[in-house]
């Protein structure tokens, strides 16, 4: 891969996380436990799709306009999506929605906080816009983790279960591969290895306030960045891509 291709792929990875989580969250519309929370979830979805749009616009530009942001979002086969497995996990229940958000937002606060210093000015500016949103997402997820963890016996059970179930998808967030290494060298990408300790501390603090326990060490799933997804992904994409695939000549 030349340096352009590497940067293009990097934008896709970041954009796919935002797109796929945005898609998951938009499934929740009109299904919230209270109206305020319904709006909070669609609001986060909106932030995510907005971030995906910015990153895919940039990817399209890097690619010389050969494909548009919408082509990138809607016209790839499953194995070309590069998101982390965590974000494609289904909305099992409200506790899973919150646990997924807690894990990813705690990661993104650190990741985009570091990307703000990228030598690539466009990535840096996307990062500084998005970091404000991410801080709110993290606050929101942390507040709910505490409420549910330290709520009723039923909610404690459900929150702990979600925290445990999704734990195996968190290791992938910190993996570095050749794309990460090369962009780190050129001062564009983020060094994720030192983030893991800070991330664990953050999660630990929230869980202990929530009277929950940190999951035990376990085997971590990975593959999203190489395009190897969970079974949930195909269903998500077939819904998301429906109109673009069924009417390839249409302009929307």
């Amino acid at each position, binding site marked *: 891969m030349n340096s352009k291709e590497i940067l293009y792929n990097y934008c896709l990875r970041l954009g796919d996380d935002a797109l796929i989580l945005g898609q998951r969250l938009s499934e929740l*519309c*009109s299904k919230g436990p209270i109206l305020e929370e319904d709006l909070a979830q669609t609001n986060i979805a909106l932030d995510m799709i*907005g971030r995906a749009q910015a990153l*895919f616009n940039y990817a399209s530009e890097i690619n010389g306009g050969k494909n548009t942001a919408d082509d990138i979002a809607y016209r790839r086969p499953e194995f070309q999506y590069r998101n982390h497995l965590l974000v494609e996990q289904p909305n099992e229940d409200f506790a899973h929605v919150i646990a997924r958000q807690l894990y990813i937002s705690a990661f993104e606060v650190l990741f985009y906080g570091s990307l703000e210093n990228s030598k690539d000015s466009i990535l840096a500016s996307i990062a500084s816009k998005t970091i404000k949103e991410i801080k709110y997402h993290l606050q929101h997820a942390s507040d709910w983790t505490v409420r549910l963890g330290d709520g009723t016996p039923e909610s404690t059970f*459900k929150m702990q279960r979600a925290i445990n179930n999704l734990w195996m998808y968190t290791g992938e967030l910190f993996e570095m591969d050749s794309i990460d290494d090369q962009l780190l060298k050129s001062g564009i990408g983020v060094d994720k290895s030192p983030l893991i300790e800070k991330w664990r501390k953050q999660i630990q603090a929230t869980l202990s306030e929530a009277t929950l326990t940190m999951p035990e060490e376990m085997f971590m799933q990975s593959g999203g960045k190489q395009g190897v997804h969970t079974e949930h992904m195909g269903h998500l994409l077939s*819904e998301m891509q429906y109109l*673009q695939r069924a009417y390839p000549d249409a*302009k929307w």
Partner: protein
Amino acid sequence: MKNLHNDESFQKRIDANEHVEPRDYMPEGYRKHLIRQISQHAHSEVIGMQPEGNWITRAPSLRAKQILLAKIQDEGGHGLYLYSAAETLGVSREEMIEQLHSGKAKYSNIFNYPALNWADIGAIGWLVDGAAIVNQVSLQRTSYGPYSRAMIRICKEESFHQRQGYEIMCKMMAGTLEQKQMAQDAMNRWWWPALMMFGPHDSDSPHTGDAVKWKIKRESNDTLRQKFIDKTVQQAELIGLVIPDKDLKWNAQNGHYDHGTINWEEFFEVINGKGPCNKQRLEHHKKYHLEGEWVREAATAHKMKKIKRERHHLTH
């Protein structure tokens, strides 16, 4: 005797176009009418999230998805303003939701129709929000202060919705044959229900009397319906959409469009629960309300624990 006096001076205030505020005296009938109307309005905003929410996950572009998400968010926000406005009259949101679930409170009949293709999202914004605006603009001058102020906030956002809906219809009509067919199909299904949103003809509208006297309602159903038709017909023609009413024609004498006969029989069937989606909409709301119960309970339990801990902290 005292009440009679109060009712008289109340009516004088109404006649002088004064706003009524939550702590002011108001006749029981006035309060009841408002609770019924505002809660129905709030429920409509919330139930209306369903047919549109049905298309968020399939929205065909990043831009379309963002616009639709933002729009539905606005609608939920309208629901919140309106629930708060109703709460100033002494009814809680939980009570209003119970009344919705028991069938005692209604929501706008329009949402008992399905959103079947992407152009429906255009038609809903353009026609349904378009019709709602006409009604809501008129309600900005309604006599109850909190309701009037909620309407002023809401109207600002509604005009965006209407424009964005029309934009979808424009794109569909400028697109492929299949897109045009989707647009016309949506037009055919939404036109008449949109006209019915204004309610029965003035001659047989059961609630109009007091509502007009109290200036809750400022313009009649037929007047509002006519305004909607007059502003919409040309927009349809401009992009080549056919309005499914063979009797629709310009009346040069009165400067309005005449329209064909509305099928009120269908309207009352749908209101009485026989529409394609009545059961589905209500069951959806009940299902997720029930599913969220453990979350609401947890939030309450957590709050109580916190208060207890703080008190404990203060006394030790």
